[in-house]
């Protein structure tokens, strides 16, 4: 590896990660138990009084009035749930069985809800559940796209650090092309193409020239920031009509969008979000059950084995790196046309890196990535709500919340993740 500029290949990195003797099987239960204790403390601290909850929006067909939930009781109920999850995990661990992800998710969500109750009990403000969920989905959308891109690329063995660059390129292309065409939908075509362009550079350097993939990814991010900012300061500044505001219209799905709670959240969205649902579902099925997915995973796990059954490893990698680029590029459209905004310098603001974290946290699976993105979005929403409810904590510390939650999640639950075995290693016959 002296040859590769000494950057560690992720394989080396994961090998090191896996090293410290088999981690105790009780880790997850212990972490859950700690979480239960934390939840109990929050329950203790919950002030008397009720939390006002609203679960419908003004435009719903069926209006459900705001109702009050007893704060302390709810907090204790949530504590019991977390405890139950921890206990169940202990039982599973003793039997040396795998602890399913949903147990962790349930416990995590309950703990977050307890925090929510803690900050809202006894206050006049309502807890707008629908709004929280909608906001979560909104914040999670670009992360999901980015993480899915990572899943596709890394499953085929190419480390994609360039997600940030792909999102940004997508955002740029969507805004500019939509402005030129006068239609936001055209932006949805341009965005993935821009992502593909970045993906092509990634593939070109890492497959054709076997440059360390982490290097290429890091550098591509810099390149895209440089290019888009340069063009923004030159061409777009002189031609504002190239960067005007175009918005994807909201397309409520009849009937579905009227379901209380979930309807407005999930089915009163624009095309990009519906595309996201479709892509998540499609990838989850195709990666694990289709011919394409089987070959994709084979190439990422054991390229030589794939080669010996006649699969062209590097072509497979090329194609899927481009596909991954397209997915992230499409996600970039979120920042501009899907949000009804013009392009702004560096407007992705590091979301690509969070998406990378979501992918790892989600263990390289589409649904896992969604779950991780939702956790991140939810904790972001929570801190927004905390600020709105005037929780007496310096704003700077509230801003840290999602990042702290991510570290806790990674350290507490996702430590022992296994990347595709051949990830980051160029294939040479």
């Amino acid at each position, binding site marked *: 590896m002296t040859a590769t500029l000494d950057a560690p290949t992720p394989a080396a990195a994961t090998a090191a990660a896996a090293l410290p003797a088999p981690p105790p*099987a009780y880790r997850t239960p212990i972490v859950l138990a700690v979480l239960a204790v934390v939840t109990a403390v929050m329950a203790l601290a919950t002030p008397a009084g009720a939390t006002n909850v609203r679960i419908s929006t003004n435009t719903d067909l069926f209006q459900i009035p705001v109702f009050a939930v007893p704060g302390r009781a709810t907090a204790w109920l949530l504590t019991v749930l977390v405890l139950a999850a921890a206990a169940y995990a202990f039982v599973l661990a003793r039997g*040396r069985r795998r602890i399913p992800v949903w147990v962790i998710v349930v416990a995590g969500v309950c703990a977050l809800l307890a925090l929510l109750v803690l900050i809202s009990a006894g206050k006049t403000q309502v807890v707008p559940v629908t709004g929280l969920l909608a906001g979560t989905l909104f914040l999670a959308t670009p992360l999901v796209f980015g993480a899915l891109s990572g899943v596709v690329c890394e499953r085929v063995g190419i480390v994609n650090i360039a997600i940030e660059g792909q999102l940004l390129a997508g955002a740029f292309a969507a805004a500019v092309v939509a402005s030129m065409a006068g239609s936001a939908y055209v932006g949805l075509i341009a965005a993935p193409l821009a992502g593909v362009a970045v993906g092509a550079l990634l593939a070109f350097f890492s497959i054709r020239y076997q440059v360390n993939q982490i290097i290429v990814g890091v550098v591509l991010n810099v390149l895209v920031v440089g290019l888009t900012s340069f063009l923004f300061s030159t061409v777009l500044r002189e031609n504002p009509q190239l960067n005007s505001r175009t918005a994807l219209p909201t397309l409520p799905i009849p009937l579905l969008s009227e379901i209380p709670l979930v309807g407005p959240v999930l089915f009163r969205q624009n095309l990009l979000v519906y595309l996201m649902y479709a892509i998540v579902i499609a990838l989850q099925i195709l990666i694990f059950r*289709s*011919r394409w997915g*089987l070959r994709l995973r084979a190439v990422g796990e054991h390229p030589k084995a794939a080669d*010996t059954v*006649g699969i062209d490893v590097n072509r497979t990698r090329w194609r899927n790196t481009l596909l991954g680029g397209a997915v992230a590029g499409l996600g970039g459209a979120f920042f501009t046309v899907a949000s009804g905004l013009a392009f702004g310098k560096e407007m992705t603001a590091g979301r690509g890196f969070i998406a990378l974290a979501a992918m790892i946290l989600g263990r390289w699976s589409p649904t896992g990535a969604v779950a991780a993105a939702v956790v991140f979005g939810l904790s972001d929403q929570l801190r927004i709500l905390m600020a709105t409810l005037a929780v007496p904590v310096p704003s700077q510390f509230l801003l840290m919340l999602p990042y702290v939650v991510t570290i806790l999640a990674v350290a507490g639950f996702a430590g022992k993740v296994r990347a595709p075995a051949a990830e980051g290693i160029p294939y040479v016959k």
Partner: protein
Amino acid sequence: MRLELRGITKRFGAFTANDAIDLVVEPGQIHAILGENGAGKSTLMNVLYGLYTPEEGEIVVDGVPRTFAGPGDAMAAGIGMVHQHFMLVPVFTVAENVVLGQEPMARGLIDAGSAATVVRETAESLGFHIDPNALVGDLPVGVQQRVEIVKALSRKAELLILDEPTAVLTPQETDELIEIMRTLAASGTSILFITHKLREIRAVADTITIIRHGRVVGTAEPTTPETELASLMVGRSVSLGVDRAPAQPGEPGLAVRGLVVRDAHGVPVVDDVSFDVARGEIVAVAGVQGNGQTELVEAILGVTTPEHGSIELAGRPIDGLGVRDRLDAGLAFIPEDRSTDGVVGEFSIVENLVLDRVGAAPVSRGGALDVAYLRRNAAERVAEFDVRTTSIDREVGTLSGGNQQKVVLARELSRDLSVLVASQPTRGVDVGSIEFLHRRIVAERDKGAAVLIVSTELDEVLALGDRIAVMCGGRLVGIVPGGVSRDVLGLMMTGMPPEEAARQAAEHHTLLGEADLAAELQAPDGEPAVVQDGAVVQDAAVVQDASHESEEQR
């Protein structure tokens, strides 16, 4: 299928791995290719399978010259291959591995049902059963090999290449494989069978081609005397029987008591193992790969934490100690996989030779490496262990496997040691070096070290072990004196207790055992090609002038 290779030449840079090789395989024939490590067998097969493009030469299938751009073309031409290093994706199921590249489809997705059927039916036609839904990574190597065979045959292979298929099998499993090969040959499938084990060839081959240094050096019939095959293969006569005095066991060196190691799923992979190795004695652990030997030695080294049991080094319990302290306490360790565990490929020979003793004088003082000492040490060790290299500064990763192994041994054997634990000490090492390395290990014994050897090669176990322990399924099946018959060891490797194994072995021989007997009868001078001081002569390199050599040593 009738296959003909004409003048195949394959070079890697300036190095010619295959030099104008000609070969003909008739339909239904079992054609053995014999050659020592590095002779170019795998390279030739990879050319035939389309993985490498030859610089020169022609592949003719049923009279039609073909060019293979990749394995896809080779498979389409009816060629299947079971690789020396299995080409299976460990995280896939058996069925997924088998259908990969030719997936049966139903409604746009892979038809899992018919994939499973393919596996079941192909396996049954060969007379065994495989669970199509098992994860390949969870299967024993013997079964993985069957998956490979099923994979090749499910692609309608008419010519099957088996690259050193027996290296990972017990003698009994080898028997079963030979049965499978015969079944296949009888149904018209041609087989190219690669090995460097003479006994196997005699048992199964119809015809033999011998390769040395990338060239065909001769063809032979199975009836050709072993001696002749051996000298063709090696180009000279070598003794691998280590000439050694009987062991003189002294004080306790290594003691293992009730050791239990569990894997991540909680399955015990080392199950209540106890044994002692005295100083001045070699205990060899035999067993098929994956029966707990790896975990056993890892527990001794301290990289795996056992659940129960204790380990003593020279009478001192070391259970609480880390790897560093165990090494300092006089443990020398040779890992089974040198390239991943034994050496740092990017480090120079100089650095690798001190990898596990950088912290102490004379290698370093006050946290600073003594570069002069490092270089002097390297020059000495390289000379002593005959490491073939252009320079002591060369990256170890660029050395051949055998030379890498010598670096590991040179490092470990140059320390003050009371216990030597060596896993597969000569795996992939050329015949000449094996001899040398074995002598060095015996020398350590004679200096008073307690030596534990783990090997999947029965030849090695028999050559070195003063006592032989056999492991199966994580349990210690029994410990028998050195020099017991292979058939007994083979049966013990299946888990049969020693007495029972001895009884059964006496009743009927394995195919290989029979072949051995046949060869003994045939041997020109009637001299049995076996024993000398309780050590067994390695089949691969037959002793012709043992007497001569003993003379020399006197």
